[in-house]
C-alpha cells in the first residue's frame, strides 16, 4: 500500500461513515418525496414505481426492482472496489427498502424527517459493514485483485467516448446545435481541453438562439 492511501479518509471505518451519510440523505430524500412530492434521488421512471404503490397499487414492483439491484451491487461493490451509488443506494435504499416498509404498513420512517435520517443511516452503516466483510473474505484473504485493474482500465477508457458522442447527438438534434457543438469541441481541443465540455457549451449557446423544433 502506498503512503498516499493511509489515514482516516482512506480507512475502512470512514467508508462505513460515508455510506451511512449518503444513505441517510437518500432515504430522507424519499421521505421528502413521500410528504412533499419533491426531492427523490432517482430517475422519473424508477420513482414512478414507488408512486404506483403510494397511489394505492402494489409495492411489489418497486420492492423487487430495488431489492435485486441492492443485492447485485452489494455483491459487486467490494470485489471491483467501487460501490455503485445509483443501483445500491439510490434504487436499493431510496426505492426498494421504502417500498418494502410501506408494503408492510410501516409509514413512520417515511413521514418523520429525523426518523428517516436515522433509518437511512442505520441501513447505510449495515451495507457498509457487509461490503467490508465481503472484501475481507475475498480480496484481503487471497493474492488476487479479481481483475479490478482490468475493470478500472475499461472504466477509464469508456470516458473518452463521451466527447464524440455528445457532438454526434448534437448534430442529430438540429443543424445549429450541431454546428455549435462541433465548433465548441474543436476550440476546446485546440486549447488542449477535453472536448466534452466544449461540445456541451457550444450546443447550449446555439440552442438558446435557435431552439430545437419539436
Amino acid at each position, binding site marked *: 500500500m502506498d503512503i498516499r492511501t493511509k489515514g482516516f479518509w482512506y480507512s475502512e471505518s470512514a467508508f462505513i461513515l460515508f455510506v451511512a451519510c*449518503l444513505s441517510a440523505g437518500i432515504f430522507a430524500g424519499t421521505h421528502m418525496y413521500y410528504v412533499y412530492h419533491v426531492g427523490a434521488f432517482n430517475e422519473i421512471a424508477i420513482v414512478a414505481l414507488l408512486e404506483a404503490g403510494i397511489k394505492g397499487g402494489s409495492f411489489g414492483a418497486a420492492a423487487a426492482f430495488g431489492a435485486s439491484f441492492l443485492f447485485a451491487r452489494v455483491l459487486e461493490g467490494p470485489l471491483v472496489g467501487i460501490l455503485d451509488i445509483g443501483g445500491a443506494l439510490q434504487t436499493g435504499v431510496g426505492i426498494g427498502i421504502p417500498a418494502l416498509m410501506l408494503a408492510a404498513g410501516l409509514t413512520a420512517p417515511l413521514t418523520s424527517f429525523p426518523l428517516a435520517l436515522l433509518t437511512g443511516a442505520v441501513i447505510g452503516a449495515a451495507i457498509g459493514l457487509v461490503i467490508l466483510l465481503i472484501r475481507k473474505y475475498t480480496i484481503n484473504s487471497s493474492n488476487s485483485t479479481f481483475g479490478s485493474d482490468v475493470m478500472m482500465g475499461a472504466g477509464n477508457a469508456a470516458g473518452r467516448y463521451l466527447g464524440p458522442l455528445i457532438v454526434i447527438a448534437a448534430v442529430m438534434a438540429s443543424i445549429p446545435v450541431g454546428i455549435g457543438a462541433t465548433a465548441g469541441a474543436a476550440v476546446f481541443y485546440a486549447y488542449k481541453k477535453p472536448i466534452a465540455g466544449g461540445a456541451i457549451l457550444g450546443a447550449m449557446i446555439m440552442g438558446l438562439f435557435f431552439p430545437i423544433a419539436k
Partner: protein
Amino acid sequence: MEPLIIILESIIIGALVGFGVGAGAARMFHAPTVQGMGAFRTLGELNACEGDSISHFSFGLGFLFNSWASVVGAGALTQDVEHRIIPNWAAATLLWRNKKVEQTLHNPKKMAFAGAIVGMIVVAVMNSTAASIPESMRQVATEVLVPAADWLINPIMPIVFWTAAMDAGKRTGVWGTVLGGLAHLIMGNAVPGIVLGILIGKGVDDSGWNRITKTLVTAVILLFLLSGFFRGFDVELLHSIQVDVPQWLIELHKFVGSEVK
C-alpha cells in the same frame, strides 16, 4: 411554512449526500486498494474532463438542466445529481485554485467538504424552486446529453468492457462473454455481467478453484437466477418460445408480489 421546511430539510440532505458522494468519488481513484463509491461511468466522466475546471463545471451544468426539469415536473431529482453534478462541481471548485488532481480530485477529505457545500446548494435550490429555466436550454440538454449518455451506457460501455475482458485472457474472455450476454438479456445491460465475468476469470487465473472462487460463482449464479425471476425473465422466455406459462409459476410470481401479464 412548508417552503421553509423543504429548504431546511434539503440543506441537511444535500450536505449529507454531498459529503458521501465527494469522499466516495475521490476514493474511486485509489480503488481497489481503497473501497470507493460512485460508478464506473462517473469515474470515466471525471477522467474525461482531465482535471480542467471549466470542463467539469460545464459537464455538471449540462445535466443540471435535465435534472431540474425532472424535479420541477415530477419531483424526482434523477440519478445525475449524485453521479454527475455533485462530483463534477465539487471537482470544478477545487481545481479552480489548484490544478493538481492528486491534491484535489483524488483527495477524499477535500472532495467530501466541497461535495457537501455543492450538495447543500444544488439540492436546496432544485427542490425549492419550481423555477423557470429557459425552455430552449433545457431542451438542448435533454436532446443532446441524454442520448449521448444513453449511448455511453449502451452500447459503448458494454463494448469497452467486453474487449477488455477478451484482451485480459481466455478465461476472462469466456466468462465475460457468457455472463455479459446473459446480463444483457436479463438486466438490460451487459456491463454488470462482464464485470462479474472478469472477476471470476481473473480470480481463478490468480488463485485457482478455491473456496473463495467457488463461493463467488455460486453467488453469481444465484444472483442471475434471482434477478431473472424478479424481472419476470422466466415468463418472457416461455412466451418467446411459445410455451404456455404454467399456473404454479404465475402463482409463485403473485406470491412475491409481481404481476404476470
